[in-house]
């Protein structure tokens, strides 16, 4: 018995020795156990070399182990993920200042979307919800929140990266959402030779567009892409057209923004570090966070790097990280709306140069000619740059949503399928002649529709009229379709669509302005008594809501003033024309002095 036991023990020892000898010897030991398997990993970038940082400092896990499972325990694949970022990118030695800012930024909180939805759908005035709050399943919320969860919740920084195929899988992932250069990588066959995803501060526009291609569609418009009516034409071989967007959508080519078309600028050339990653404040809306205006560049303010103090240091640091743009000590840098440095806008001597962030190429910059008559014109003080210089804006009329409680749909925030399914369709889309109105900051700006017709169906599949809602809003945003030339005078002063009445015929009868609309929303089954494209009626009564407090269509007085000018254009076609210097007086003269040369025509024009 004992002998057998001894024999067993000895044979077990033999097995042990055999096993141990078969284990490959990894000598000498690398600084991190990870590198014993992942022998050759490319550097993510020059600021984070593997030789200095290893793997552990970003990816955590167990760096001392040579055993795969032990080593990978508690490892994070994506250190940028907002749920772990505090102990990875945001750890004390690295970027502790940035991470809290990013978590408060609008791309992480999505507050604007949530707020507007609740405000417009459920009349909740001061919603303070954000993505982090909604990620807990128990914070369910009403119809608006369910819409957010199922239709909107797939685009924010908290979303996990790589949870799906295609574009949607590339979205999210905290820091990595922007700072990783997405290449379609295959899973490495050989773990020892590992191509680490490249990280960068020169963020390619594709990273922005993977999210910013719906709703306002700025990421498309800027590049001259317009989400089309979905015909997929012209056909390409036996296929539909290859000009595709995610979600089975297609696009048309329209004139791109001049900043792209002429200077090949990327998104980050204008959008600053604080504008994108936040400034530490939980802003209500995107426009609170954005840190630039047209004037930031085209009517710039400069401070010298030396005198700018902290801001100057930041400029130097950002330029260092960019690696393509350098800042000479004596250079002056531009200041953003909030006074942050724009290191790529520099004044060297008397010369103002704008440097492209992706390659450091200098770009000639036109300084806003304030004195030119078309800019200094009296009465045009409230015009935003966009109101004249935006060529087009994507306009999606009539968004018809069915909400069926008898079906389930994936909740993007919890990742689970929950009751309530949303499906969207549209009436029609247009790109030309943006409608104008007054935005929340009191400026004349282009508006685009967001017109929701929600039909709610209960668990039995029956239509519930009481829960269904119509919310027709017009929203003002920068279309990102800047052109050098502007819209014509008539385009604003006499075009019913631009003025907010919608397509139709504007005419004067018995000295009163009248309007004959083209779209018949009532007959088209919309259940509203104004055309879909009407922002305001001819009497200045708003037809649609806006998504911001303070934003509104033109009122009657403004409409009257705008239309008054239109009658003069056929003759007085130039900005420099004297009658515009003091239009009130010109108007008075026109009414009183019967011997004016234009009178004969005008008399007949106003029957």
């Amino acid at each position, binding site marked *: 018995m004992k002998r057998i036991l001894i024999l067993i023990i000895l044979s077990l020892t033999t097995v042990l020795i055999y096993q141990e000898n078969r284990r490959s010897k990894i000598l000498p030991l690398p600084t991190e156990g990870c590198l014993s398997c992942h022998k050759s990993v490319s550097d993510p970038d020059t600021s984070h070399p593997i030789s200095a940082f290893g793997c552990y400092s970003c990816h955590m896990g167990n760096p001392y182990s040579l055993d795969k499972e032990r080593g990978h325990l508690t490892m994070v694949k994506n250190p940028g993920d907002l749920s772990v970022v505090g102990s990875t990118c945001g750890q004390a030695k690295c970027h502790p200042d940035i991470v809290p800012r990013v978590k408060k930024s609008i791309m992480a909180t999505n507050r604007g979307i949530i707020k507007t939805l609740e405000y417009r759908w459920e009349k909740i005035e001061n919603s303070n919800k954000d993505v982090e709050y909604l990620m807990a399943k128990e914070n369910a919320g009403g119809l608006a929140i369910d819409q957010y969860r199922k239709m909107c919740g797939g685009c924010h920084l908290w979303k996990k990266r790589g949870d799906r195929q295609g574009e949607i899988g590339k979205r999210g992932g905290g820091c990595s959402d922007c700072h990783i250069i997405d290449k379609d990588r295959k899973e490495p066959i050989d773990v020892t030779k590992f191509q680490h995803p490249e990280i960068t501060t020169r963020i390619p526009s594709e990273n922005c567009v993977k999210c910013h291609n719906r709703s306002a569609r700025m990421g498309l418009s800027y590049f001259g892409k317009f989400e089309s009516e*979905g015909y997929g*034409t*012209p056909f390409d071989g*036996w296929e539909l057209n290859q000009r595709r967007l995610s979600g089975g959508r297609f696009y048309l080519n329209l004139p791109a923004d001049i900043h792209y078309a002429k200077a090949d600028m990327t998104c980050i050339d204008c959008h600053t570090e604080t504008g994108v990653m936040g400034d530490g404040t939980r802003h209500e809306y995107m426009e609170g966070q954005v840190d630039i205006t047209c004037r930031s560049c085209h009517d710039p303010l400069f401070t010298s790097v030396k005198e700018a103090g902290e801001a100057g240091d930041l400029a130097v640091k950002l330029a260092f990280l960019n690696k393509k743009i350098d800042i000479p000590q004596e250079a002056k840098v531009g200041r953003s709306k909030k006074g942050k440095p724009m290191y790529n806008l520099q004044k060297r001597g008397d010369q103002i140069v704008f440097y492209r962030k992706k390659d450091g190429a200098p770009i000639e910059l036109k300084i806003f000619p304030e004195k030119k008559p078309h800019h200094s014109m009296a009465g045009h003080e409230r015009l935003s740059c966009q109101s004249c210089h935006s060529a*087009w804006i994507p306009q999606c009329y009539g968004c018809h949503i069915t909400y069926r409680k008898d079906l389930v749909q994936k909740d993007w925030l919890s990742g689970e399928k929950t009751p309530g399914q949303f499906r969207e369709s549209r*009436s029609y889309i247009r790109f030309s002649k943006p409608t104008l109105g007054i935005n929340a900051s009191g400026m004349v700006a282009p508006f685009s529709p967001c017109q929701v017709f929600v039909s709610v169906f209960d668990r039995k599949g029956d239509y519930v009229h009481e829960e269904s809602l119509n919310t027709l809003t017009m929203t003002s945003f920068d279309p990102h379709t800047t052109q050098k030339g502007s819209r014509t005078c008539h385009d604003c002063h006499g075009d019913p669509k631009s003025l907010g009445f919608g397509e139709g015929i*504007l005419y004067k009868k018995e000295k009163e302005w009248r309007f004959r609309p083209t779209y018949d929303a009532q007959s088209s*089954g919309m259940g509203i008594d104004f055309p879909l494209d009407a922002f305001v009626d001819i009497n200045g009564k708003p037809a649609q809501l806006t998504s911001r407090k303070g934003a509104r269509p033109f009122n009657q007085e403004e409409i009257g003033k705008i239309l008054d000018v*239109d009658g003069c*254009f056929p003759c007085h076609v130039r900005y420099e024309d004297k009658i515009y210097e003091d239009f009130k007086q010109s108007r008075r003269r026109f009414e009183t002095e019967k011997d004016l040369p234009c009178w004969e025509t005008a008399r007949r024009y106003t029957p």
Partner: protein
Amino acid sequence: MLGNSPKIYPIVCLFFTLIACSGPKPPEAINYKHCAACHKGIESISRNHEFECKICHLQPARQTMPFLEEHESIIRNPSDPRWVSLFCGKCHEKEIKQVQTSLHSTMAGIINQTRYLWGAQDVAFPPIYSANHALKPLPESPLHPESPAELVDDFLRRKCLRCHLHTKGPEAKGLYRATGCAACHMIYNNKGLYEGTDKAIDKHKPSYPMVHRFTKQIPDMQCLHCHNQNHVGADYEGLFEHDYSKTYRSRTTGGAPLPVIYGLDQHHLARDVHAEKGLWCIDCHSRKEIMGDGKLRGYALAVPMIKCKDCHAGFFEPAPNPSLKGITEHDGRFYFHSSYTGKTYPLTLFSKETLSHSVSLHQRVRCSACHAQWSFQDYGLSVIREDYADYIKWRKLTDQGDPYLKDFLDEQLGREKIDPPASPDWLDSRLKKGAWYTGWRFRRWEWMPLGMDQNQKYSILRPKYQYFISYVDATGYVVLDNVVPQRGDDSDLGWTFMPYVPHTTSPVGRSCESCHLNNIAAGIGVFDGSTIDTQLTIPSTPVFPSMTLMSNEAQKRLLLRK
């Protein structure tokens, strides 16, 4: 029954419907000559035609037979082109001959223009081919077409000519109608359901006229059975097709989906002021226009028609044309009396005082160029014929305004084993391999480019069409890949913008600036046509030499450039 079997083409449909109408087959033979035994309560066809049933519905040889065994031998529609001379021709020989020369019958406009544009014939005018035998009958495409010129006949037969007097076309809501004379004179409602008193006819089975009655009181609904889908006629009622993609199938507004009619759901835009007042198509469009005057014409605008000035006067006409039926004068004011609707309308006369009327150059502008509120602007028509089964890509595009195609695609997409595509040739009602799919680039109603009509008057143009032609053969080989055709005389691309009269008349003209200072009106295009998509908005030459685009000087004048 029809809805369930989309692949059975109309003649077969007719055949089966007749069987279905006859009810369950009785054990012993029935003498179908006793029509009234079953068809109790059937309406009289019209006061002028109070004949025995057999006079119109049985071939002369059978009329004398004492016993009729098969219901199938009863001719359902004696006015069908196959039978029309045999039955109607006895009394209406002249009318039938005239109708056979009318554009409704010959389809010469569509056929010759399209063939010319696709390079199959050297000229569009004078017309060479017709859908009937008035001119050369339309040939068939070869089995293996290799060029647009060889494909065009197939395209016409299977896509365009589903609207003509020889076929009932794909039957669906809004599209039910008869053939021949009955196409107009026998009223069908939009659902194709019988509403009369005949007990033998199932009132829930579509494809029947509303009542068994011939009429001259033809309502607009009847005309729209063909004149739909962004063709003139639909605009009179303010209809504009939705886009094809599923994204634009507005699912619900107020709990119910938008009604589908003419194969798609429709936007409702401003109706023509005449429609608003209650005038019918036939109030303006006379018998001669519609049923022909015996002369062969090449296109619609060439047909002598009633003019705006006939009712409303014009630059040189101080008053309406008194010879016109229905116009009366009373106390110096003019009235129009519609014998169809029975209403009398006061006529608003052309006023020289109006600023725009006082501009002398505007004498060269068609009324419709200013008074049209909107127009059909369907840019970039991509067509592809596929003989190869590949349906997945169409899953969001099954609605192409073609009910036959929709049913076919829906069926194939729901199946695991798929059939190769097949679709009917509407001209001879045979099922042929392959199917035509279409798609636009974009469609607008607010843009109105201008050009000159055959009388050198400014007129609104519409693209008709900007073809991109593809053909994939049965092996999946792409024979034609997105080809822009060349005209038959190689003078230009096979794209055209044609002057037309939008039936969207507004009582007030559009603003000056809708033409003047307007790049689109001047033919410069949206955003100067600077991209491959916006260049489609630049007009190309009309098909007929008498019609032209605006000259450079005219453009400059329009844009007030000196």
